[in-house]
């Protein structure tokens, strides 16, 4: 959807229009190395160009912000001393023309320096290193839930097309994508934690539990690695509710998506043929339909991951989940420019990489794409 097609679409629909589907000849055509390589190279080139664009956008955006970073860094007392202000300005290179500042910024980036937060004086890269795994963990949780639930619902919906089951599922999935996440998060937290106490409270672990030794930064995985079962259970417990809330939207998305993919496949001749051959329905469903529908679904999963990162801004705020979203929110509300730039950059890059990977998978699995 939307973004999935993001990068791919741009180039793909540049190709001459015309009906392609059902073109069996093209489908079976063996992959040629040359166009594949060319396809990959082009995608890499576009991705790099986009990442450069992202640096320009983040830089320009934050330069629009009507706030004086020097005052924010120094604090009220020290900012009253013009001498110190001038010194800091010089040290930060803020007395330079904008274009020079941009190149300084770019060269710092290439050296892995994303700047230092105005608010906490912690290097942004270091903080992102801390919070990023938290969001990834939440994202994986949500993806797993939504893939399982979404695919099953979608499949069910497609196989029972136009029955009451289908209508119910479609309606539910529409409602699912209509609810404001932060509200669902609040309500879920209120009901399941505050009233029923069936899930643990906010945060990634109960406060007195020490996080497991850092390997991946995902508490559940790290706890398993170091064999701390109690920590693992605790981390998993904390993961459940926020993942479900976050998954709600992607479930809706995946349901709709897998439904239409499966419907597409069902119409293909080979599925009809398989059915005609008398293969049991279950075999047909799993061997043909599911496999065929997998490609577009990969797209959605890839996309959903990016979208989860942003859905996380609001969910993480409610669940005190110390991830990228909360970090971004704090940065934006306190106008902490280096943080805003860092988060923007990282998220932009993640989006672009995910799209790149999705494109590659597409290219490998579906020859039509790369031929064009």
């Amino acid at each position, binding site marked *: 959807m939307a973004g999935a097609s993001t990068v791919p679409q741009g180039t793909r629909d540049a190709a001459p229009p015309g009906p392609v589907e059902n073109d069996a000849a093209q489908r079976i055509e063996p992959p040629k190395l040359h166009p594949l390589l060319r396809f990959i190279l082009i995608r890499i080139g576009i991705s790099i160009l986009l990442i450069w664009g992202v640096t320009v956008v983040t830089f320009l955006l934050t330069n629009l912000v009507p706030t004086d970073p020097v005052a924010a860094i120094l604090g009220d007392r020290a900012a009253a001393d013009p001498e110190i202000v001038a010194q800091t300005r010089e040290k930060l290179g803020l007395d330079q023309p904008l274009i020079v500042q941009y190149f300084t910024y770019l060269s710092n980036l290439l050296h892995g320096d994303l700047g230092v937060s105005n608010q*906490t004086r912690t290097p942004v890269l270091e903080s992102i290193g801390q919070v990023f795994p938290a969001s990834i963990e939440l994202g994986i949780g949500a993806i797993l839930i939504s893939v399982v639930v979404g695919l099953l619902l979608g499949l069910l919906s497609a196989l029972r097309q136009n029955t009451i089951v289908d209508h119910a599922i479609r309606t539910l999935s529409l409602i699912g994508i209509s609810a404001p996440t932060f509200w669902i998060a609040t309500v879920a937290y209120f009901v399941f934690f505050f009233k029923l106490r069936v899930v643990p409270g906010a945060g990634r672990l109960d406060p007195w539990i020490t996080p497991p030794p850092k390997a991946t930064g995902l508490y559940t995985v790290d706890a398993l690695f170091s064999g701390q079962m109690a920590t693992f259970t605790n981390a998993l417990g904390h993961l459940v509710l926020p993942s479900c809330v976050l998954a709600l939207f992607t479930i809706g998305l995946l349901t709709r998506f897998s439904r239409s993919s499966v419907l597409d496949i069902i119409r293909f001749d080979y599925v009809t043929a398989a059915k005609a051959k008398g293969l049991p329905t279950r075999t047909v469903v799993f061997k043909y339909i599911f496999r065929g529908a997998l490609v577009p679904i990969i797209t959605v999963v890839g996309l959903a991951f990016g979208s989860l990162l942003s859905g996380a801004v609001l969910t993480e705020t409610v669940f005190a989940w110390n991830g990228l979203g909360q970090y971004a929110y704090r940065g934006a509300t306190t106008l902490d420019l280096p943080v805003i730039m860092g988060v923007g950059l990282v998220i932009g890059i993640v989006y672009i990489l995910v799209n790149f990977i999705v494109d590659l998978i597409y290219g490998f699995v579906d020859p039509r794409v790369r031929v064009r």
Partner: protein
Amino acid sequence: MKRLTRNFVAICSTLALTAGLAACSGGSDDSGGAGDTIVAETAFNLKTIDPHRQFEFTGSTIDNAVYQTALEFEDGDLTKPTDGLCSFEMSDDDKEMTLTLKDKDAKFSNGDPVTVDDIVFSFERLQGIKGNPSFFLDGVKVKKVDDETVKLISKDPNPALPYILPNASIGIVNSKVVKDNEGTTDENDGAEQFLNENSQGSGPYKVEKYDADSQVVLTANEHYSGPKPKFKRVVLRNVSAETQLTDIQSGQAQVAYDLNADQAKQIDESMGKISSLPSTRSLYIFNNTDEKLGGPAADPNFRKAVMAAIDYDKLVDLAGEGSQRMASLVPNEFVGAVSKDDAPERDLAKAKALLKKAGYDGEKIPFHYPSDQAVNGVDLAQLAETLQAQLKEADINLDLKPAPSSTQLDGFRSAKQPMGIGTWGADFPDPTNYNVFIPGGSVAERVNWGKDADPKLAELAAEASKAKDSDRDAAYKKLYKATTDTGVWIPLVQPVDTVAVGSSIQKFVSNADTSFDFAKAE
């Protein structure tokens, strides 16, 4: 301004609350698992814990537990500075203070004894690195006399010095180790990062892990010379007030710093105790005195009309039980505070008459405030909405202009905002800290209230600065009463400092100096 510190509060009481836990609680199934760990929660306001740079609320809370200071307040009574690491003596002209090393057993967390050299280095580093708290020792010369004595010599009489020295920003660090790690007493100092991760104090705790985004972990300093704390580990977490409430209720956390009045009400006996003390914060409305920038706000009659249009009782109600009216910006418990019986009252008829006199005809006035800030649980956005509704009843129209603190502060600092909400937290419990509000003071400049704007106030200020000892109270009262009468600053409310303590803590000390003392909790 905006010093968000709590460590100086002028009141007296040391509350040693013994929670009736024994009586009520089979509920100590606080799956706590906590054991010897205290989990304390606050919404972080934390830039650094290098004591000599630290100027934020959370930094103070941590440094209070990690560093000792030359002087302290007796049982947290902010009117009574007393001996800390040193004993002190003030000369008659208030210009020379002699500090004598008293606690000879005091040891830093690496086992080194605390020496006079450490004290001298700490004072000089505070002054030299030109950080936010450097102003504490402005105009003070530090002079080592011998291995037991230090003299602090001030250019002008400095009666506030004993009230300043207990501040956590003037914590004593291990000079040898800090120097070895790029610490200097000038602007080239490079020890901040080191001090964030490796505290060098002689207090009951030391820093185990510092993460300004999420949490700071303290562990007991085994070389601490005082009584060993029962809780060996303190986890200070960065969470919002809402989460703090649920965490206290569910026993996940033992201390919550930021609950507002409504949230505090939801904590009943079985969950924990609420300790309420007057805060050292003042909330006020500022009015720009420049006619072009301030518009109607520059007219004294208009300002007095605003003062008469506010329903102060409702503000106190909003700020919660324990918050107080103010008759000046000086908190009620300080020397020099104007009695709250003199606080302005609501009088709509008077307000309307004054508005007529001012020739104000309902035009909209931009009203600035930081939208992301709560002061002791008073949400400034809600305060602004309340004020807007109240002033509307007197036909005064405010145009609300919320902005994130940093932007709002930029605007205030550039002296261009006509009206808005300001906050001030005491840096030290002495009326001289409020000199910034009299004409020519650093905050007064932000409403274009220059030195020569009001000769009468200048005269009163000169008198107050000359007053000594018991005369100071009356002299400062007079000064600040006259300041309030101009209506440039309209004092709104002095909020209450609320700390919620979970039921698994049976005994704790909470006082004006330290709202929760980790080392003394049991």
